[in-house]
Protein backbone atom coordinates (compact mmCIF):
# COMPACT_ATOMS: atom_id res chain seq x y z
CA UNK A 1 0.00 0.00 0.00
CA UNK A 2 1.40 3.38 -0.94
CA UNK A 3 2.83 5.50 1.81
CA UNK A 4 0.19 8.15 1.40
CA UNK A 5 -2.56 5.66 2.01
CA UNK A 6 -1.27 4.59 5.43
CA UNK A 7 -3.45 5.53 8.32
CA UNK A 8 -2.31 8.75 10.03
CA UNK A 9 -1.46 6.92 13.26
CA UNK A 10 0.89 4.61 11.45
CA UNK A 11 2.37 7.44 9.50
CA UNK A 12 3.10 9.51 12.56
CA UNK A 13 4.46 6.54 14.52
CA UNK A 14 6.61 5.43 11.62
CA UNK A 15 7.91 8.95 11.21
CA UNK A 16 8.88 9.28 14.85
CA UNK A 17 10.40 5.83 15.04
CA UNK A 18 12.33 6.27 11.83
CA UNK A 19 13.60 9.63 12.91
CA UNK A 20 14.72 8.35 16.29
CA UNK A 21 16.30 5.32 14.66
CA UNK A 22 18.17 7.48 12.23
CA UNK A 23 19.46 9.78 14.94
CA UNK A 24 20.51 6.87 17.09
CA UNK A 25 22.17 5.16 14.19
CA UNK A 26 24.16 8.17 13.16
CA UNK A 27 25.22 8.90 16.70
CA UNK A 28 26.17 5.31 17.32
CA UNK A 29 28.10 5.02 14.13
CA UNK A 30 29.95 8.22 14.83
CA UNK A 31 30.77 7.24 18.34
CA UNK A 32 31.80 3.74 17.36
CA UNK A 33 34.01 5.07 14.65
CA UNK A 34 35.72 7.45 16.96
CA UNK A 35 36.15 4.80 19.56
CA UNK A 36 37.77 2.43 17.10
CA UNK A 37 40.12 5.03 15.83
CA UNK A 38 41.18 6.20 19.27
CA UNK A 39 41.53 2.63 20.43
CA UNK A 40 43.91 1.88 17.64
CA UNK A 41 45.87 5.00 18.45
CA UNK A 42 45.97 4.04 22.08
CA UNK A 43 47.05 0.53 21.27
CA UNK A 44 49.78 1.77 19.00
CA UNK A 45 50.97 4.22 21.58
CA UNK A 46 50.97 1.54 24.23
CA UNK A 47 52.96 -0.72 21.98
CA UNK A 48 55.34 2.04 21.17
CA UNK A 49 55.91 2.77 24.81
CA UNK A 50 56.48 -0.89 25.54
CA UNK A 51 58.83 -1.19 22.64
CA UNK A 52 60.77 1.85 23.73
CA UNK A 53 61.07 0.57 27.24
CA UNK A 54 62.17 -2.79 26.03
CA UNK A 55 64.53 -1.25 23.55
CA UNK A 56 66.10 0.84 26.23
CA UNK A 57 66.50 -2.28 28.32
CA UNK A 58 67.94 -4.19 25.39
CA UNK A 59 70.97 -1.98 24.76
CA UNK A 60 73.11 -3.94 27.11
CA UNK A 61 72.26 -7.35 25.73
CA UNK A 62 72.85 -6.19 22.19
CA UNK A 63 76.08 -4.44 23.04
CA UNK A 64 77.41 -7.53 24.67
CA UNK A 65 75.67 -9.92 22.29
CA UNK A 66 74.18 -11.76 25.19
CA UNK A 67 71.82 -14.13 23.58
CA UNK A 68 70.60 -15.80 26.68
CA UNK A 69 69.78 -12.58 28.40
CA UNK A 70 68.16 -11.25 25.34
CA UNK A 71 65.90 -14.20 25.31
CA UNK A 72 65.04 -13.77 28.88
CA UNK A 73 64.40 -10.13 28.39
CA UNK A 74 62.01 -10.84 25.57
CA UNK A 75 60.26 -13.55 27.51
CA UNK A 76 59.13 -10.89 29.92
CA UNK A 77 56.64 -10.05 27.26
CA UNK A 78 54.67 -13.04 28.53
CA UNK A 79 52.94 -10.62 30.72
CA UNK A 80 51.14 -9.16 27.79
CA UNK A 81 48.97 -11.84 26.23
CA UNK A 82 48.44 -9.74 23.13
CA UNK A 83 52.05 -9.70 22.08
CA UNK A 84 52.32 -12.31 19.40
CA UNK A 85 55.99 -12.08 18.58
CA UNK A 86 59.01 -10.02 19.31
CA UNK A 87 62.42 -10.12 17.61
CA UNK A 88 65.66 -8.45 18.40
CA UNK A 89 67.80 -7.82 15.35
CA UNK A 90 71.42 -7.10 15.67
CA UNK A 91 73.27 -4.38 13.95
CA UNK A 92 73.43 -6.34 10.78
CA UNK A 93 69.78 -7.04 10.72
CA UNK A 94 70.00 -10.64 11.65
CA UNK A 95 67.68 -12.20 14.09
CA UNK A 96 69.45 -12.14 17.42
CA UNK A 97 66.65 -13.29 19.73
CA UNK A 98 62.99 -14.04 19.29
CA UNK A 99 59.96 -14.36 21.45
CA UNK A 100 58.21 -16.71 21.89
CA UNK A 101 61.22 -18.97 21.90
CA UNK A 102 59.66 -21.47 19.56
CA UNK A 103 58.22 -19.09 17.14
CA UNK A 104 58.42 -20.22 13.52
CA UNK A 105 61.03 -18.52 11.40
CA UNK A 106 58.60 -17.47 8.77
CA UNK A 107 56.18 -15.96 11.26
CA UNK A 108 58.48 -13.06 11.81
CA UNK A 109 60.23 -10.93 9.26
CA UNK A 110 63.75 -12.07 8.41
CA UNK A 111 65.08 -8.58 8.39
CA UNK A 112 63.85 -5.48 10.07
CA UNK A 113 61.57 -3.27 8.11
CA UNK A 114 61.47 0.47 8.33
CA UNK A 115 61.18 2.05 11.77
CA UNK A 116 57.76 2.94 13.01
CA UNK A 117 54.48 1.38 13.97
CA UNK A 118 51.89 0.26 11.61
CA UNK A 119 48.97 -2.07 11.16
CA UNK A 120 49.84 -4.93 8.88
CA UNK A 121 47.51 -7.85 8.20
CA UNK A 122 45.61 -8.39 11.46
CA UNK A 123 48.55 -7.28 13.58
CA UNK A 124 50.04 -4.18 14.92
CA UNK A 125 53.77 -4.27 14.27
CA UNK A 126 56.50 -1.92 15.04
CA UNK A 127 60.25 -1.60 14.50
CA UNK A 128 61.91 0.25 17.30
CA UNK A 129 65.61 1.17 16.95
CA UNK A 130 67.74 0.13 19.83
CA UNK A 131 70.51 2.66 20.42
CA UNK A 132 72.66 3.95 23.13
CA UNK A 133 71.78 7.46 24.10
CA UNK A 134 73.02 9.66 21.33
CA UNK A 135 75.30 7.08 19.85
CA UNK A 136 75.16 4.39 17.11
CA UNK A 137 72.37 2.09 16.48
CA UNK A 138 72.77 -1.27 18.13
CA UNK A 139 69.90 -3.10 16.50
CA UNK A 140 66.16 -3.14 16.00
CA UNK A 141 63.34 -4.39 18.15
CA UNK A 142 60.40 -5.92 16.36
CA UNK A 143 57.07 -6.19 18.18
CA UNK A 144 53.90 -7.69 16.82
CA UNK A 145 50.64 -7.40 18.71
CA UNK A 146 47.25 -8.77 17.77
CA UNK A 147 44.22 -6.56 17.75
CA UNK A 148 42.01 -8.73 19.79
CA UNK A 149 41.75 -6.07 22.47
CA UNK A 150 40.45 -3.59 20.03
CA UNK A 151 38.14 -6.08 18.46
CA UNK A 152 36.74 -7.15 21.78
CA UNK A 153 36.19 -3.62 22.91
CA UNK A 154 34.59 -2.65 19.68
CA UNK A 155 32.40 -5.70 19.72
CA UNK A 156 31.31 -5.00 23.25
CA UNK A 157 30.51 -1.41 22.57
CA UNK A 158 28.67 -2.50 19.43
CA UNK A 159 26.49 -4.85 21.37
CA UNK A 160 25.83 -2.24 24.00
CA UNK A 161 25.05 0.27 21.32
CA UNK A 162 22.59 -2.03 19.59
CA UNK A 163 20.94 -2.88 22.84
CA UNK A 164 20.61 0.76 23.71
CA UNK A 165 19.27 1.48 20.25
CA UNK A 166 16.71 -1.24 20.54
CA UNK A 167 15.53 0.00 23.88
CA UNK A 168 15.53 3.55 22.64
CA UNK A 169 13.53 2.63 19.56
CA UNK A 170 11.04 0.76 21.63
CA UNK A 171 10.72 3.73 23.91
CA UNK A 172 10.35 5.97 20.86
CA UNK A 173 7.70 3.73 19.49
CA UNK A 174 5.74 3.70 22.70
CA UNK A 175 6.07 7.43 23.16
CA UNK A 176 5.11 8.14 19.61
CA UNK A 177 2.09 5.90 19.90
CA UNK A 178 0.94 8.05 22.75
CA UNK A 179 1.97 11.40 21.32
CA UNK A 180 0.63 10.88 17.83
CA UNK A 181 -2.74 10.84 19.45
CA UNK A 182 -2.65 14.57 19.98
CA UNK A 183 -2.47 15.10 16.24
CA UNK A 184 -4.19 12.04 14.90
CA UNK A 185 -7.11 12.00 17.24
CA UNK A 186 -8.68 15.30 16.20
CA UNK A 187 -8.13 14.42 12.56
CA UNK A 188 -9.70 11.02 13.04
CA UNK A 189 -12.58 12.54 14.91
CA UNK A 190 -13.10 15.01 12.06
CA UNK A 191 -12.93 12.21 9.52
CA UNK A 192 -15.41 10.14 11.49
CA UNK A 193 -17.81 13.03 11.76
CA UNK A 194 -17.56 13.82 8.08
CA UNK A 195 -18.22 10.21 7.20
CA UNK A 196 -21.17 10.04 9.57
CA UNK A 197 -22.64 13.18 8.06
CA UNK A 198 -22.31 11.99 4.51
CA UNK A 199 -23.54 8.43 5.01
CA UNK A 200 -26.43 9.20 7.32
CA UNK A 201 -27.25 12.65 5.93
CA UNK A 202 -27.41 13.71 9.55
CA UNK A 203 -26.33 17.31 9.86
CA UNK A 204 -26.83 17.47 13.59
CA UNK A 205 -23.58 15.68 14.50
CA UNK A 206 -20.58 17.77 15.43
CA UNK A 207 -16.90 16.94 15.63
CA UNK A 208 -15.45 17.10 19.15
CA UNK A 209 -13.05 19.95 19.65
CA UNK A 210 -9.93 18.49 21.25
CA UNK A 211 -7.53 21.39 21.27
CA UNK A 212 -6.99 24.99 20.34
CA UNK A 213 -4.32 24.44 17.68
CA UNK A 214 -4.85 24.57 13.91
CA UNK A 215 -6.72 21.28 14.11
CA UNK A 216 -8.94 22.83 16.67
CA UNK A 217 -9.58 25.77 14.35
CA UNK A 218 -10.31 23.35 11.53
CA UNK A 219 -12.72 21.40 13.67
CA UNK A 220 -14.41 24.57 14.77
CA UNK A 221 -14.80 25.80 11.21
CA UNK A 222 -16.07 22.40 10.16
CA UNK A 223 -18.66 22.43 12.90
CA UNK A 224 -19.81 25.90 11.91
CA UNK A 225 -20.17 24.77 8.33
CA UNK A 226 -22.21 21.83 9.49
CA UNK A 227 -24.37 24.16 11.47
CA UNK A 228 -25.01 26.29 8.43
CA UNK A 229 -25.69 23.29 6.27
CA UNK A 230 -28.09 22.00 8.85
CA UNK A 231 -29.98 25.28 8.87
CA UNK A 232 -30.11 25.45 5.10
CA UNK A 233 -31.17 21.88 4.89
CA UNK A 234 -33.97 22.51 7.31
CA UNK A 235 -35.05 25.61 5.45
CA UNK A 236 -34.96 23.69 2.20
CA UNK A 237 -37.06 20.91 3.59
CA UNK A 238 -39.61 23.34 4.91
CA UNK A 239 -39.73 25.06 1.55
CA UNK A 240 -40.19 21.75 -0.16
CA UNK A 241 -43.03 20.88 2.13
CA UNK A 242 -44.65 24.25 1.56
CA UNK A 243 -44.17 23.94 -2.16
CA UNK A 244 -45.72 20.55 -2.23
CA UNK A 245 -48.62 21.84 -0.27
CA UNK A 246 -49.06 24.70 -2.67
CA UNK A 247 -48.79 22.38 -5.62
CA UNK A 248 -51.35 20.09 -4.11
CA UNK A 249 -53.66 23.01 -3.46
CA UNK A 250 -53.21 24.35 -6.92
CA UNK A 251 -53.73 20.95 -8.45
CA UNK A 252 -56.92 20.57 -6.51
CA UNK A 253 -58.00 24.01 -7.66
CA UNK A 254 -57.20 23.16 -11.24
CA UNK A 255 -59.02 19.90 -11.00
CA UNK A 256 -62.07 21.60 -9.65
CA UNK A 257 -61.90 24.21 -12.34
CA UNK A 258 -61.46 21.55 -14.96
CA UNK A 259 -64.46 19.77 -13.58
CA UNK A 260 -66.60 22.85 -13.72
CA UNK A 261 -65.30 23.65 -17.20
CA UNK A 262 -66.17 20.17 -18.29
CA UNK A 263 -69.59 20.52 -16.84
CA UNK A 264 -70.01 23.88 -18.54
CA UNK A 265 -68.89 22.44 -21.82
CA UNK A 266 -71.30 19.56 -21.45
CA UNK A 267 -74.10 21.96 -20.63
CA UNK A 268 -73.24 24.12 -23.62
CA UNK A 269 -73.22 21.14 -25.89
CA UNK A 270 -76.57 20.08 -24.57
CA UNK A 271 -77.92 23.61 -24.97
CA UNK A 272 -76.60 23.80 -28.49
CA UNK A 273 -78.19 20.50 -29.37
CA UNK A 274 -81.49 21.75 -27.98
CA UNK A 275 -81.14 24.94 -29.97
CA UNK A 276 -80.49 22.90 -33.05
CA UNK A 277 -83.60 20.85 -32.60
CA UNK A 278 -85.57 23.97 -31.74
CA UNK A 279 -84.42 25.86 -34.83
CA UNK A 280 -85.14 22.88 -37.00
CA UNK A 281 -88.64 22.40 -35.81
CA UNK A 282 -89.30 26.14 -36.00
CA UNK A 283 -88.39 26.22 -39.62
CA UNK A 284 -91.01 23.58 -40.33
CA UNK A 285 -93.72 23.96 -37.80
CA UNK A 286 -94.05 27.75 -37.69
CA UNK A 287 -93.94 28.31 -41.39
CA UNK A 288 -96.58 25.82 -42.37
CA UNK A 289 -99.49 27.66 -40.71
CA UNK A 290 -98.18 30.92 -42.18
CA UNK A 291 -98.32 29.32 -45.56
CA UNK A 292 -101.90 28.30 -44.96
CA UNK A 293 -102.91 31.79 -43.81
CA UNK A 294 -101.31 33.40 -46.79
CA UNK A 295 -102.50 30.81 -49.23
CA UNK A 296 -106.14 30.81 -48.25
CA UNK A 297 -106.22 34.57 -48.00
CA UNK A 298 -104.97 34.73 -51.53
CA UNK A 299 -107.52 32.19 -52.60
CA UNK A 300 -110.22 34.34 -51.07
CA UNK A 301 -108.90 37.33 -52.97
CA UNK A 302 -108.85 35.41 -56.20
CA UNK A 303 -112.08 33.49 -55.88
CA UNK A 304 -114.29 36.01 -54.16
CA UNK A 305 -113.14 39.26 -55.73
CA UNK A 306 -116.69 40.02 -56.69
CA UNK A 307 -118.04 39.56 -53.18
CA UNK A 308 -115.33 41.58 -51.47
CA UNK A 309 -115.33 45.34 -51.45
CA UNK A 310 -112.25 47.61 -51.26
CA UNK A 311 -112.00 47.34 -47.52
CA UNK A 312 -112.38 43.58 -47.54
CA UNK A 313 -109.73 43.15 -50.13
CA UNK A 314 -107.50 45.52 -48.28
CA UNK A 315 -107.90 43.54 -45.08
CA UNK A 316 -106.97 40.35 -46.83
CA UNK A 317 -103.99 42.06 -48.40
CA UNK A 318 -102.81 43.20 -44.99
CA UNK A 319 -103.29 39.68 -43.66
CA UNK A 320 -101.09 38.42 -46.41
CA UNK A 321 -98.47 41.12 -45.89
CA UNK A 322 -98.29 40.42 -42.18
CA UNK A 323 -97.98 36.71 -42.76
CA UNK A 324 -95.17 37.12 -45.21
CA UNK A 325 -93.39 39.46 -42.91
CA UNK A 326 -93.60 36.90 -40.18
CA UNK A 327 -92.07 34.38 -42.51
CA UNK A 328 -89.13 36.69 -43.12
CA UNK A 329 -88.76 37.34 -39.42
CA UNK A 330 -88.65 33.63 -38.74
CA UNK A 331 -86.06 33.17 -41.42
CA UNK A 332 -83.90 35.96 -40.09
CA UNK A 333 -84.16 34.62 -36.56
CA UNK A 334 -83.15 31.21 -37.81
CA UNK A 335 -80.14 32.73 -39.54
CA UNK A 336 -79.16 34.47 -36.33
CA UNK A 337 -79.45 31.23 -34.39
CA UNK A 338 -77.40 29.40 -37.00
CA UNK A 339 -74.64 31.97 -36.75
CA UNK A 340 -74.32 31.38 -33.04
CA UNK A 341 -73.80 27.66 -33.34
CA UNK A 342 -71.85 27.54 -36.58
CA UNK A 343 -68.27 26.35 -36.42
CA UNK A 344 -65.71 28.92 -37.32
CA UNK A 345 -63.17 27.83 -39.88
CA UNK A 346 -60.29 30.26 -39.87
CA UNK A 347 -58.95 31.04 -43.33
CA UNK A 348 -57.46 33.98 -45.09
CA UNK A 349 -60.31 35.69 -46.89
CA UNK A 350 -60.12 38.39 -49.52
CA UNK A 351 -62.80 40.80 -48.36
CA UNK A 352 -62.43 43.05 -51.38
CA UNK A 353 -63.26 40.19 -53.73
CA UNK A 354 -66.22 39.24 -51.60
CA UNK A 355 -67.49 42.82 -51.54
CA UNK A 356 -67.17 43.04 -55.30
CA UNK A 357 -69.18 39.83 -55.73
CA UNK A 358 -71.96 41.05 -53.48
CA UNK A 359 -72.03 44.42 -55.21
CA UNK A 360 -72.37 42.68 -58.56
CA UNK A 361 -75.19 40.52 -57.20
CA UNK A 362 -77.05 43.55 -55.90
CA UNK A 363 -76.65 45.29 -59.20
CA UNK A 364 -77.92 42.23 -61.06
CA UNK A 365 -80.92 41.90 -58.76
CA UNK A 366 -82.05 45.49 -59.36
CA UNK A 367 -80.49 46.64 -62.58
CA UNK A 368 -82.62 49.73 -62.66
CA UNK A 369 -80.65 51.22 -59.80
CA UNK A 370 -77.22 52.51 -60.51
CA UNK A 371 -75.05 52.63 -57.44
CA UNK A 372 -71.45 53.69 -57.43
CA UNK A 373 -69.25 51.20 -55.58
CA UNK A 374 -65.77 52.15 -54.40
CA UNK A 375 -64.08 49.02 -53.16
CA UNK A 376 -60.46 49.13 -51.97
CA UNK A 377 -58.77 46.08 -53.47
CA UNK A 378 -56.64 43.41 -51.78
CA UNK A 379 -58.11 43.79 -48.31
CA UNK A 380 -57.60 40.48 -46.56
CA UNK A 381 -58.60 39.17 -43.18
CA UNK A 382 -58.62 35.93 -41.26
CA UNK A 383 -61.96 34.34 -40.49
CA UNK A 384 -64.76 32.01 -41.53
CA UNK A 385 -65.53 32.76 -45.19
CA UNK A 386 -69.24 31.93 -44.98
CA UNK A 387 -69.88 34.03 -41.90
CA UNK A 388 -67.81 36.93 -43.22
CA UNK A 389 -69.85 36.81 -46.35
CA UNK A 390 -72.99 37.18 -44.27
CA UNK A 391 -71.44 40.25 -42.64
CA UNK A 392 -70.52 41.94 -45.89
CA UNK A 393 -73.79 40.92 -47.46
CA UNK A 394 -75.79 42.47 -44.65
CA UNK A 395 -73.77 45.69 -44.53
CA UNK A 396 -73.66 46.22 -48.27
CA UNK A 397 -77.30 45.32 -48.66
CA UNK A 398 -78.15 47.83 -45.96
CA UNK A 399 -76.12 50.49 -47.72
CA UNK A 400 -77.83 49.59 -50.95
CA UNK A 401 -81.20 49.79 -49.28
CA UNK A 402 -80.74 53.03 -47.42
CA UNK A 403 -79.42 54.90 -50.43
CA UNK A 404 -82.54 54.30 -52.52
CA UNK A 405 -83.62 57.85 -51.91
CA UNK A 406 -80.31 59.36 -52.88
CA UNK A 407 -79.91 60.85 -56.31
CA UNK A 408 -76.29 59.73 -56.54
CA UNK A 409 -75.87 56.74 -54.26
CA UNK A 410 -72.33 55.78 -53.35
CA UNK A 411 -71.16 52.83 -51.30
CA UNK A 412 -67.57 52.45 -50.17
CA UNK A 413 -65.69 49.52 -48.74
CA UNK A 414 -62.24 50.06 -47.31
CA UNK A 415 -60.03 49.89 -44.25
CA UNK A 416 -58.37 52.28 -41.87
CA UNK A 417 -55.38 51.54 -39.66
CA UNK A 418 -54.94 53.04 -36.28
CA UNK A 419 -53.95 52.10 -32.72
CA UNK A 420 -52.11 49.07 -34.03
CA UNK A 421 -55.19 47.49 -35.53
CA UNK A 422 -57.03 47.55 -38.79
CA UNK A 423 -60.71 48.39 -39.02
CA UNK A 424 -62.76 47.64 -42.13
CA UNK A 425 -65.47 50.06 -43.03
CA UNK A 426 -68.60 50.20 -45.17
CA UNK A 427 -69.81 53.68 -45.87
CA UNK A 428 -72.80 55.02 -47.72
CA UNK A 429 -74.24 58.43 -48.40
CA UNK A 430 -77.80 57.38 -47.72
CA UNK A 431 -80.37 58.03 -45.05
CA UNK A 432 -77.97 57.72 -42.15
CA UNK A 433 -79.15 57.73 -38.55
CA UNK A 434 -79.19 59.92 -35.47
CA UNK A 435 -76.12 59.19 -33.34
CA UNK A 436 -78.36 59.46 -30.30
CA UNK A 437 -79.71 56.00 -31.11
CA UNK A 438 -76.41 54.48 -32.08
CA UNK A 439 -76.53 51.83 -29.36
CA UNK A 440 -79.87 50.55 -30.61
CA UNK A 441 -78.54 49.78 -34.05
CA UNK A 442 -77.41 46.30 -33.25
CA UNK A 443 -80.31 45.15 -31.12
CA UNK A 444 -82.48 42.30 -32.29
CA UNK A 445 -85.54 43.58 -34.10
CA UNK A 446 -84.47 47.13 -33.35
CA UNK A 447 -85.05 49.51 -36.17
CA UNK A 448 -84.49 53.19 -36.53
CA UNK A 449 -86.81 53.54 -39.49
CA UNK A 450 -90.33 52.38 -40.03
CA UNK A 451 -91.11 49.59 -42.42
CA UNK A 452 -92.78 52.09 -44.68
CA UNK A 453 -89.57 53.99 -45.22
CA UNK A 454 -87.29 51.02 -45.56
CA UNK A 455 -88.13 47.36 -45.37
CA UNK A 456 -86.24 45.15 -43.06
CA UNK A 457 -86.58 43.06 -39.93
CA UNK A 458 -83.95 44.61 -37.70
CA UNK A 459 -82.13 41.33 -37.32
CA UNK A 460 -79.43 41.91 -39.91
CA UNK A 461 -77.14 44.05 -37.80
CA UNK A 462 -77.68 41.84 -34.75
CA UNK A 463 -76.52 38.90 -36.85
CA UNK A 464 -73.53 40.90 -38.08
CA UNK A 465 -72.55 41.84 -34.57
CA UNK A 466 -72.79 38.28 -33.34
CA UNK A 467 -70.53 37.11 -36.16
CA UNK A 468 -68.00 39.86 -35.49
CA UNK A 469 -68.02 38.99 -31.80
CA UNK A 470 -67.38 35.35 -32.56
CA UNK A 471 -64.32 36.44 -34.49
CA UNK A 472 -63.13 38.38 -31.45
CA UNK A 473 -63.70 41.75 -33.07
CA UNK A 474 -65.76 44.85 -32.49
CA UNK A 475 -68.29 46.72 -34.60
CA UNK A 476 -69.47 50.30 -34.29
CA UNK A 477 -71.13 52.90 -36.45
CA UNK A 478 -71.08 56.59 -37.11
CA UNK A 479 -73.65 58.56 -38.97
CA UNK A 480 -75.81 61.58 -39.26
CA UNK A 481 -79.35 61.94 -40.46
CA UNK A 482 -79.49 62.15 -44.25
CA UNK A 483 -75.73 62.29 -44.40
CA UNK A 484 -75.01 58.63 -44.64
CA UNK A 485 -73.63 56.05 -42.27
CA UNK A 486 -70.29 54.33 -41.80
CA UNK A 487 -69.94 50.96 -40.15
CA UNK A 488 -66.52 49.95 -38.80
CA UNK A 489 -65.52 46.48 -37.71
CA UNK A 490 -62.39 44.71 -36.59
CA UNK A 491 -61.64 41.00 -36.66
Amino acid sequence: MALRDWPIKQKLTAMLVLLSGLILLLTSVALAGYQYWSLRQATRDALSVRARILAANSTAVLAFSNEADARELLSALRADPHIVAAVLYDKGGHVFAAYPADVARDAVPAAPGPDGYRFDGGLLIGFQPVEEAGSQRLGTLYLASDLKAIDDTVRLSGVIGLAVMAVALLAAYLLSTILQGTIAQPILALAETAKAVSTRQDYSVRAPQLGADELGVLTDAFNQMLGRIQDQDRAMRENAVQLEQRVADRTLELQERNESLRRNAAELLAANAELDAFAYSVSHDLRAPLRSIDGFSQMLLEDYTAQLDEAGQDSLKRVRAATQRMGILIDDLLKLARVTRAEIRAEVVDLSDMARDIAAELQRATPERLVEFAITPHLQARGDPRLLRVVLDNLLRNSWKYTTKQPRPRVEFGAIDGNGERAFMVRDNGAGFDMKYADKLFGVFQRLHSAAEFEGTGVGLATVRRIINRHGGRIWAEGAVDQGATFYFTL
Partner: protein
Amino acid sequence: MNPGTILLVEDNPDDVALTLRALKSNNITNEVVVAQDGAKALDYLFGTDGSGPVGRELPAVVLLDLKLPKVTGMEVLQRIRGDEATRLLPVVILTSSDEERDVLEGYSLGANSYVRKPVDFVEFTQAAKQLGLYWLLMNRAPPVPRRP
Protein backbone atom coordinates in the same frame (compact mmCIF):
# COMPACT_ATOMS: atom_id res chain seq x y z
CA MET B 1 -98.24 17.18 -71.35
CA ASN B 2 -96.99 14.04 -69.78
CA PRO B 3 -100.04 12.04 -68.85
CA GLY B 4 -98.41 10.62 -65.80
CA THR B 5 -99.65 11.03 -62.24
CA ILE B 6 -98.12 13.21 -59.64
CA LEU B 7 -97.56 11.56 -56.27
CA LEU B 8 -97.82 14.25 -53.60
CA VAL B 9 -96.54 13.05 -50.26
CA GLU B 10 -97.70 15.66 -47.75
CA ASP B 11 -99.25 15.40 -44.30
CA ASN B 12 -100.57 18.95 -43.92
CA PRO B 13 -104.07 19.15 -45.45
CA ASP B 14 -103.77 22.92 -45.90
CA ASP B 15 -100.62 22.49 -47.88
CA VAL B 16 -102.32 19.76 -49.91
CA ALA B 17 -105.20 22.09 -50.74
CA LEU B 18 -102.86 24.94 -51.62
CA THR B 19 -100.70 22.70 -53.79
CA LEU B 20 -103.68 21.34 -55.68
CA ARG B 21 -104.96 24.88 -56.12
CA ALA B 22 -101.60 26.09 -57.35
CA LEU B 23 -101.36 23.27 -59.87
CA LYS B 24 -104.89 23.83 -61.09
CA SER B 25 -104.44 27.53 -61.53
CA ASN B 26 -101.56 26.74 -63.80
CA ASN B 27 -103.60 24.35 -65.88
CA ILE B 28 -101.74 21.33 -64.81
CA THR B 29 -104.44 18.71 -65.07
CA ASN B 30 -102.55 15.56 -64.32
CA GLU B 31 -103.97 13.27 -61.73
CA VAL B 32 -102.57 14.05 -58.32
CA VAL B 33 -102.39 11.19 -55.84
CA VAL B 34 -102.01 12.30 -52.27
CA ALA B 35 -100.29 10.18 -49.63
CA GLN B 36 -100.58 11.64 -46.16
CA ASP B 37 -97.64 9.92 -44.67
CA GLY B 38 -94.57 7.96 -45.65
CA ALA B 39 -96.13 4.56 -45.11
CA LYS B 40 -99.03 5.31 -47.42
CA ALA B 41 -96.61 6.61 -50.03
CA LEU B 42 -94.66 3.38 -49.91
CA ASP B 43 -97.86 1.35 -50.07
CA TYR B 44 -98.84 3.21 -53.20
CA LEU B 45 -95.53 2.62 -54.83
CA PHE B 46 -94.80 -0.89 -53.73
CA GLY B 47 -98.09 -2.43 -52.83
CA THR B 48 -99.45 -2.96 -49.32
CA ASP B 49 -97.39 -6.02 -48.72
CA GLY B 50 -94.26 -4.40 -50.11
CA SER B 51 -94.02 -7.01 -52.81
CA GLY B 52 -93.49 -4.63 -55.67
CA PRO B 53 -95.11 -1.87 -57.67
CA VAL B 54 -98.77 -2.49 -58.20
CA GLY B 55 -100.20 -3.17 -61.59
CA ARG B 56 -100.37 0.39 -62.70
CA GLU B 57 -97.70 2.73 -63.87
CA LEU B 58 -95.41 4.57 -61.59
CA PRO B 59 -96.04 8.29 -61.16
CA ALA B 60 -94.28 10.74 -63.43
CA VAL B 61 -92.87 12.66 -60.49
CA VAL B 62 -93.00 12.44 -56.70
CA LEU B 63 -93.37 15.67 -54.70
CA LEU B 64 -91.99 14.68 -51.34
CA ASP B 65 -92.33 16.56 -48.06
CA LEU B 66 -89.71 15.76 -45.44
CA LYS B 67 -91.50 16.01 -42.14
CA LEU B 68 -93.95 13.15 -42.26
CA PRO B 69 -95.38 10.94 -39.56
CA LYS B 70 -94.57 7.23 -39.40
CA VAL B 71 -92.05 7.02 -42.21
CA THR B 72 -90.06 10.23 -42.86
CA GLY B 73 -89.47 11.74 -46.25
CA MET B 74 -85.80 10.72 -46.25
CA GLU B 75 -86.71 7.14 -45.50
CA VAL B 76 -89.22 7.13 -48.33
CA LEU B 77 -86.56 8.50 -50.63
CA GLN B 78 -84.16 5.81 -49.52
CA ARG B 79 -86.71 3.11 -50.23
CA ILE B 80 -87.47 4.54 -53.63
CA ARG B 81 -83.83 4.71 -54.59
CA GLY B 82 -83.17 1.31 -53.13
CA ASP B 83 -85.63 -0.62 -55.27
CA GLU B 84 -84.70 -1.50 -58.81
CA ALA B 85 -88.16 -0.75 -60.10
CA THR B 86 -88.29 2.77 -58.69
CA ARG B 87 -84.65 3.67 -58.73
CA LEU B 88 -84.94 6.13 -61.54
CA LEU B 89 -88.22 7.68 -60.43
CA PRO B 90 -87.97 11.52 -60.39
CA VAL B 91 -88.33 12.84 -56.83
CA VAL B 92 -88.65 16.52 -55.98
CA ILE B 93 -88.25 17.35 -52.32
CA LEU B 94 -90.77 20.03 -51.47
CA THR B 95 -90.35 21.20 -47.90
CA SER B 96 -90.29 24.15 -45.52
CA SER B 97 -86.82 23.33 -44.32
CA ASP B 98 -83.96 25.45 -45.47
CA GLU B 99 -81.42 23.60 -43.37
CA GLU B 100 -78.21 22.85 -45.18
CA ARG B 101 -78.06 19.40 -43.74
CA ASP B 102 -81.47 18.54 -45.19
CA VAL B 103 -80.43 19.73 -48.62
CA LEU B 104 -77.22 17.75 -48.33
CA GLU B 105 -78.97 14.62 -47.16
CA GLY B 106 -81.65 14.92 -49.82
CA TYR B 107 -79.20 15.13 -52.66
CA SER B 108 -77.00 12.46 -51.11
CA LEU B 109 -79.91 10.05 -51.04
CA GLY B 110 -80.62 10.75 -54.67
CA ALA B 111 -83.32 13.40 -54.90
CA ASN B 112 -83.53 15.04 -58.28
CA SER B 113 -84.42 18.44 -56.93
CA TYR B 114 -84.93 20.37 -53.70
CA VAL B 115 -87.49 23.17 -53.49
CA ARG B 116 -88.31 25.23 -50.45
CA LYS B 117 -91.98 25.99 -50.00
CA PRO B 118 -92.41 29.77 -49.77
CA VAL B 119 -94.85 31.37 -47.35
CA ASP B 120 -96.08 33.77 -49.98
CA PHE B 121 -98.81 31.96 -51.86
CA VAL B 122 -98.23 33.89 -55.04
CA GLU B 123 -94.64 32.75 -55.02
CA PHE B 124 -95.85 29.27 -54.19
CA THR B 125 -98.12 29.25 -57.18
CA GLN B 126 -95.23 30.40 -59.33
CA ALA B 127 -93.07 27.62 -57.97
CA ALA B 128 -95.76 25.04 -58.64
CA LYS B 129 -96.13 26.27 -62.18
CA GLN B 130 -92.44 26.05 -62.82
CA LEU B 131 -92.22 22.62 -61.26
CA GLY B 132 -95.10 21.35 -63.28
CA LEU B 133 -93.84 22.80 -66.51
CA TYR B 134 -90.45 21.40 -65.97
CA TRP B 135 -91.13 17.92 -64.67
CA LEU B 136 -94.20 17.16 -66.71
CA LEU B 137 -93.41 18.95 -69.89
CA MET B 138 -89.75 19.54 -70.39
CA ASN B 139 -88.24 16.72 -68.51
CA ARG B 140 -87.88 13.43 -70.32
CA ALA B 141 -89.07 10.80 -67.86
CA PRO B 142 -86.88 7.81 -67.37
CA PRO B 143 -87.95 4.65 -69.15
CA VAL B 144 -90.25 2.42 -67.21
CA PRO B 145 -88.47 -0.79 -66.33
CA ARG B 146 -89.98 -3.89 -67.81
CA ARG B 147 -91.75 -6.03 -65.31
CA PRO B 148 -90.73 -9.66 -65.31
